[in-house]
């Protein structure tokens, strides 16, 4: 089987040199494979059953104009097992994403997804600190307060909701495609038929001939590889470390906020969940992320470091970071030293909090509330079983569509998680694609027509996605520059932005779609 994939891969790459002879060899290849298996015509074939692929399938099912079509989704994993594992977890899963209000609106009112709202947390704004400045003054840290509403939701929550929605619809009597979910099935080969339809050979032996092939299979998408478009992108040489936090005191009231500080290694985000739970995304370099994800044995160490990163100034925080990494560099870790250091860090944070409150307020009542209002809640410990890391990259394909083929979500763009826009961009893609497909059905246009349908989707999404990707990339790089001059400029910039209400409103409108 592996050799078959390899063979298909080499032939695909050669054929893109568009030499006629090689094109012929591709045709002959495709006919030899298809003669052994039967070809089934189909309207839409979706490859990939991640959150984007499943949401797309749910959108198709709930659209009055499109649900008469003949569609299928191919997924290599067993979703049932995946969801069972999630149900057995009994705590928050570590893969948590933010969903903007307009996208959540779409998921709940347009599709009617049975999301578990007990595990979705709404927060009303996000505060961004400049943590790259090394000044030692205990003053109000440079910050931007954005009133961006957002919802924190586990990826598995979305997957589960989609899965049960699709299963329920499939079981109902009027379902047009009762078996539209093909699980534990892989795409072995994609080729082209003589009349220009894609031929997709699956591991269950069936070859599908869809009018439209949609790739939602992420960064390593097989459809993307077949389309062979050029792209821009780079690895950030850093990793995102995720983990679930336990707060010292449960957050009170409904006014929850997200917090993010831009350190020179990358931003650290501290995002609220229900009660005394929170989640973090920390982008850091290889050594640091490996240390957090693999070497660390004590969750309180990481918790104290997060507190230091938000409250202390840069020099103090970096001093503690280095000291901890040094302690853990030996084979046998001296627990006593570690505990001592944690204690020292905690006292330092407390002291700094006190001075910050005193300097920035003029009466005792404000002084008591100052830290609660302007700084993230203190983290008590980090659940080390949930700590994991993933490589960060920025990637954008130059084109999402070809005749009878289209890409959505992570297959055509990847972004740094600092703006929390990864899945949101995918959901926006889905909305636009569904809109164009519905329009095509209304006007009697072939849904696989690139020029009249798919290209419209690409043209409407590409600029939006570019702005988002480039903006995120710019922010990441700006704060990664370790130059005192740049730090001063970013400080001034952040104070300026924070004083401009209209600009802030516009920014949060761009991100969340709501004022």
């Amino acid at each position, binding site marked *: 089987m592996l050799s078959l994939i390899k063979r298909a891969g080499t032939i695909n790459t050669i054929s893109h040199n568009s030499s*006629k002879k090689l094109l012929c060899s591709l045709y002959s290849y495709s006919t030899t494979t298809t003669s052994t298996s039967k070809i089934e*015509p189909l309207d839409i074939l979706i490859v990939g059953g991640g959150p984007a692929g499943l949401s797309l399938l749910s959108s198709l099912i709930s659209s*009055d104009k499109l649900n008469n079509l003949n569609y299928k989704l191919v997924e290599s994993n067993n979703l049932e097992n995946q969801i069972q594992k999630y149900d057995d977890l009994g705590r928050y899963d570590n893969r948590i994403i933010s969903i903007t209000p307009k996208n959540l*609106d779409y998921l709940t*009112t*347009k599709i009617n997804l049975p999301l578990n709202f007990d595990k979705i947390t709404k927060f009303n704004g996000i505060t961004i600190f400049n943590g790259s400045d090394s000044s030692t003054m205990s003053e109000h840290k440079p910050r931007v307060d954005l009133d961006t509403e957002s919802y924190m939701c586990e990826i598995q929550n979305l997957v589960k909701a989609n899965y049960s929605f699709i299963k329920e619809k499939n079981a109902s009597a009027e379902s047009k495609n009762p078996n539209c979910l093909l699980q534990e099935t892989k795409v072995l080969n994609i080729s082209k038929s003589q*009349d*220009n*339809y894609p031929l997709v050979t699956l591991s269950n032996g069936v070859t599908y*001939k869809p*009018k439209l092939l949609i790739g939602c299979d992420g960064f390593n998408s097989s459809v993307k590889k077949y389309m062979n478009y050029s792209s821009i992108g780079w690895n950030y040489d850093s990793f995102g470390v995720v983990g679930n936090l336990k707060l010292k005191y449960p957050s009170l009231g409904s006014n929850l906020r997200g917090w993010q500080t831009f350190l020179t290694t990358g931003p650290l985000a501290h995002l609220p969940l229900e009660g005394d739970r929170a989640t973090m995304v920390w982008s850091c370099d290889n050594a640091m992320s490996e240390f957090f994800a693999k070497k660390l044995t004590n969750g309180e160490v990481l918790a104290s470091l997060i507190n230091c990163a938000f409250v202390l100034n840069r020099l103090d925080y970096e001093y503690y970071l280095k000291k901890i990494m040094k302690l853990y560099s030996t084979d046998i870790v001296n627990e006593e030293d570690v505990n001592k250091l944690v204690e020292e860090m905690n006292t330092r944070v407390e002291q700094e909090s006190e001075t910050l409150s005193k300097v920035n307020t003029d009466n005792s009542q404000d002084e008591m509330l100052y830290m609660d209002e302007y700084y993230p809640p203190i983290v008590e410990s980090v659940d080390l079983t949930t700590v994991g890391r993933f490589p960060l990259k920025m990637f954008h394909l130059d084109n999402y569509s070809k005749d009878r083929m289209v890409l959505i979500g992570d297959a055509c763009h990847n972004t740094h998680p600092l703006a929390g826009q990864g899945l949101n961009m995918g959901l926006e893609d889905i909305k636009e694609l569904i809109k164009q497909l519905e329009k095509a059905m*209304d*006007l*009697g*246009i*072939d849904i696989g*027509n*690139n*020029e*009249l349908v798919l290209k419209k989707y690409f043209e409407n999404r590409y600029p939006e996605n570019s702005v988002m990707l480039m903006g995120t990339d710019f922010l990441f790089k700006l704060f990664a520059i370790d130059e005192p001059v740049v730090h001063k400029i970013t400080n001034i910039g952040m104070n300026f932005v924070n004083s401009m209400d209209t600009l802030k409103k516009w920014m949060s409108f761009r991100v969340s779609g709501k004022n």
Partner: protein
Amino acid sequence: MHKTQIKRLINLRSVHVNPNIGFNPNIATTTNAVANNNTSFSTLEQSHFAKLAPTWWDPSGNQRILHLMNSKRIEFIRATLTKKLSESANKNKTEDTIYIPKFNKDLLPNSVRLQVDTMQQTYLDELLTENVKNWKVLDMGCGGGLLTESLSRLSMFENVKGYDITEECIQVAKAHAENDMQLKENLADGTLSYEIKDLFNDPDQTTKFNMICCFEMLEHVDEPFKVLDCLKDKLETDGVLVLSTINKELVSYLTTILAAEHVLNLVPKGTHDFNKYINCEDIENWGFKNKMELIDAKGVMFNPIKDEWELHDKKDVGNYFISFRKL
């Protein structure tokens, strides 16, 4: 001209990018020889469209603008049919004569407004599909079958026919439909069919249609009103006639001939002849004299910034769509 030859030409076109590769000068000469003087379509025009035939189905080539217009044609047809049907539906129902105060949808919460919108849309869509499912539809002057295919793909009508006088066009249309999975089935079960037909010398006077579309054809014939009379005879009572052509005025000349053909090269040179343009008024007068009730008339113009055609209310300027109901 052989079918296989045409097919080969089309296959050639899909490989090469040069738009003229499919053009075979012999095609034009044979058509000239066959054509006689008494047809609805002039010899010169026939040879022009025979030349165009192979390039018809290249949505990125020089027929791109026509492909874009096609969506607006269907949009207009849908709007016309919905307008006609909802008017007649409202006439017959007693409950609809009761006055219901209008309300502003914008005042409703977002989710409720969305629901009201979708309910309204599904009501209209159902009304449309319920009423037209037994309809026989004719696309007169179908060319490569652009509109015919779209009408057939809507799967709303009982059957869709495409008539054209140019043999090459019909062959291209058939060959293109054969290459589409859905349309191939439609061709096989007869819900989609193409015929070479000369309107003026048609022995078949019994076949009637519920809707006849005649898009961008009247400006290419010598006797447009004779064509309209023939089309009217082919229409059932209460049937719908949808037409489109170009007004005979300055803006039309500037846009369709000077800009489109000579400056921007959007359309092949020699496609339009200013003397054959017909004013919207004249068509309306023809309808009035021939007991055809006007349903809707809309101007249509190309917006190069949006890269899209747009419908507007100035029906006396540039291109226009117009629809009638036979009384």
